[in-house]
């Protein structure tokens, strides 16, 4: 957002214009990947009204879900920010991680599978519904034009 959207000190602010400008700017930012974060999908989980009404947002939300579904469960470098006893703390964390990974790796990989299947299912249903609606719209349009031709 920039100051050009409104004039400080101007008499009266046109909020509708500002909201319109923000909406445009957000659309551009989404296209530019500034809001690709799977966190957005999480934040939007309760904004059902938006999902129901905005086709473009549904596509965006599905994209966020696809990114969020698979969680990286592989081993990672263990670090310690505190200097004091750092080697000891890192060793301790490594032991804890090894103990936990025995149980959690299987659990999280199954969770990843479930997430992936769910996203694929929702995505598939969405595409199927869109295709069905498009077919129905085409059929309605054809029937209407046939009706018009019969009339004339």
């Amino acid at each position, binding site marked *: 957002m920039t100051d050009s959207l409104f004039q400080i000190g101007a008499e009266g602010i046109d909020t509708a214009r500002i909201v319109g400008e923000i909406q445009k700017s957000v659309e551009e*930012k989404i296209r530019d990947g500034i809001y690709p*974060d799977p966190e957005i999908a*999480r934040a939007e989980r309760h*904004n059902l009204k938006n999902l129901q009404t905005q086709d473009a947002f549904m596509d965006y939300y599905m994209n966020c879900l696809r990114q969020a579904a698979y969680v990286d469960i592989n081993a990672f470098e263990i670090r310690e920010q505190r200097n004091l006893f750092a080697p000891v703390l890192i060793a301790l964390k490594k032991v804890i991680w090894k103990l936990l990974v025995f149980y959690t790796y299987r659990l999280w990989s199954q969770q990843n599978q479930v997430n992936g299947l769910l996203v694929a299912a929702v995505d598939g249903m969405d595409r199927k519904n869109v295709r069905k609606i498009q077919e129905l719209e085409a059929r309605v349009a054809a029937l209407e034009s046939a009706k018009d031709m019969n009339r004339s």
Partner: protein
Amino acid sequence: MSRADRIAFVCPRFDDRGTVGGAENLLKELALRAASNGRDVHFLTTCAVNHFTWENEKPAGVRDVGGMTVHEFEVDEDRDLERFLDIQDRISHGGEVSDEEEQAWLDNNVNSRGLIDHVRESAYDRIVAGPYLFGLTWRALLAHPDTACLVPCLHDEAFSRLRIMRRLFAQIPRFLFNAEPERQLADRLFDISAAHCAVVGVGLDSKEIDSDAFMRAHGLRTPYAIYVGRREPLKGTPMLTDYVDTFRRRTGRDLKLVFAGSGEIETPTSLRPHIIDLGFVSDREKSEAMAGAAAFIHPSVNESLSIVILEAWQAGTPCLVTAFSDVMRYQCEQSGGGLWFRSYPEFEEQLTLLLDHPEFRAMLGNQGKAFVEREYNWSVVEQRLLSALDKR
């Protein structure tokens, strides 16, 4: 135009301290205003306080409050709650219900035989009742339809499409709406003649508010956003906490979130240390908390007026509201006191704009304040109310 002297206001709950819901406060304020105008006002309500349990917590009886007579009646305890909830659940999820089930939903809703008997046996010039969702409202209005005046507090929801509601709206000769979009919604749903409608709303008393008092009292040095009202999914508070949590994470800003009102706050664990839950607060503390906030955020879709955004504007605070509430978006457009968002990215941009530009924030707040002083001062609202009540 004939003067309506003896007026009954009917509402399922009444609380002297004003800690019940918005619709209840609205009915109470309108009744008090009519009483202060010299009308013989009777406020008919139940002994219940909690809108989940509807238990009779207060003793039944009659008392004087602010120049009006408050009659408290017991809620009927023999309702089939299981059947009510089953049908209610199906309605709210858009399921089909038969005429018989709609009637059962109404019969097992919040009702009070004592209150309805009183209405039937009394002669009131006007019976003003609301909100529309309660069996009690339905029965009280149809006890004497010619005197009825409905304050629907209508939302675009599954319940407003029940056939039983169409029957109610068709028989009522007077409606008091809170805002123009609510009247338009009623017109779309029930085809009501404009001659039967009045947009009244509620007035706010002017007051001096110390905008630094809240931050001083709570030792706050970082900006905060505020929400005042019930905390529940229907009000959108889980979305609000998700949004603010995401905002903190993505922008790295230390923004606190202040809540006032009742109900559990459903929040991500990471946001919990940054929430200040005031619970029930005095009117003064509420105004001070609003006045110190960077923004008042209202995420609820189902609002017919939203007194709290008027109160926020009165405190000079701009509002961020969901774009899916026709009423709040309309109020923001009319007043120039707030912005409206459809999704998280828009919310983030708008909140950032408010936080980064204090002059802009102050200008929005001032525009909102001027709007409230112009449209929602009591003398204007009282005029609208009395003229609607006196209409034949």
